[in-house]
């Protein structure tokens, strides 16, 4: 088997196992109260962490580039409660225009 297919197979197996562990082992059961309070905080925490790394990380370095302009424009729209689709289009356009200008 070629290296490429071995990578496809093993990376796939590892990813599937990581996703399945919680639902297969704990599925359909109530989490203990303390655990539920921890889990309740996961969405705000992880979403905020995902947003910040998607905007500021380039591999292992932190950069400020056109993505920040897109996020700031998007954040303004989110804050003003504009329709989601409009906010996304404006944010995307802002990032693309910034890239065009700054080359």
């Amino acid at each position: 088997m070629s290296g490429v297919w071995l990578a496809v197979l093993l990376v796939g197996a590892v990813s599937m196992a990581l996703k399945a562990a919680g639902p297969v082992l704990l599925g359909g059961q109530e989490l203990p109260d303390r655990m539920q309070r921890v889990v309740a905080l996961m969405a705000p925490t992880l979403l905020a962490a995902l947003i910040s790394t998607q905007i500021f990380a380039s591999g292992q370095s932190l950069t400020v580039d056109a993505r920040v302009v897109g996020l700031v424009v998007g954040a303004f729209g989110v804050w003003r409660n504009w329709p989601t689709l409009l906010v996304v289009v404006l944010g995307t356009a802002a990032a693309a225009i910034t890239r065009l200008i700054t080359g």
Partner: protein
Amino acid sequence: MDSQEALPPPATTPEGYSPPVGFREELLRGMRMAIPLAIAVFGFAVSFGVVARAADMGIVAPIAMSLTTFAGSAQFAAASVVGTGGGIAAAIVAAVLLNSRYLPIGISVAPAMTGNAVKRFLSAQLVVDESWAVGHLGGGRYSRGRLLGAGVVVYCAWVGGTAVGVLGAQYVGDPLRFGLDVVSPVLFLALLKGQISDRRALVCALLGVAVALSLTPFASPGVPLIASTVVCLLGLRK
């Protein structure tokens, strides 16, 4: 498929929690909510296809990878490792680190994942960042219908985009150039706004950003994300 699925009653009733309706309605709702995210995912998938083709992965292997792995960052890492002639072990380590957040994510959705073990295993494969964010009802409660509906839409976008990318590699440039890379953070921001239900959630979000960004220069990609979830332990305090 069960048409009426009763979610367990919420331990606390956070604001914004609406009682679950039928499975089918939730499924459709998840699909609808995921459409804007799926556009971003499609763009990323095209980009992955182009990168995988450039890394000499061929046509079938990248599509097979999208069908099975279904995790963007891990696949980009694997393609770049293969492209630079790195070992299989490096690709697997990167995949484990990048996908490590799916352990806590999996635990968070576990109560909503009903049915037998096979059904739970398959449903779990549709839980990715996007469907997880859409499926959150508030207060750490998740809707299985919404998770699966959003998951199916995102999955189709991911696999379809990969196919477009590998087959059209010489015709399409890098779609991220057009600003598609800000679609998902902006959408996540819109979802995050609804998740900041109290002071503690706000503190956790800010700490999560601080942990993730301060670790980025020192840790392998993926580690800052799993490390940020440690701040959720604040929930252990009453």
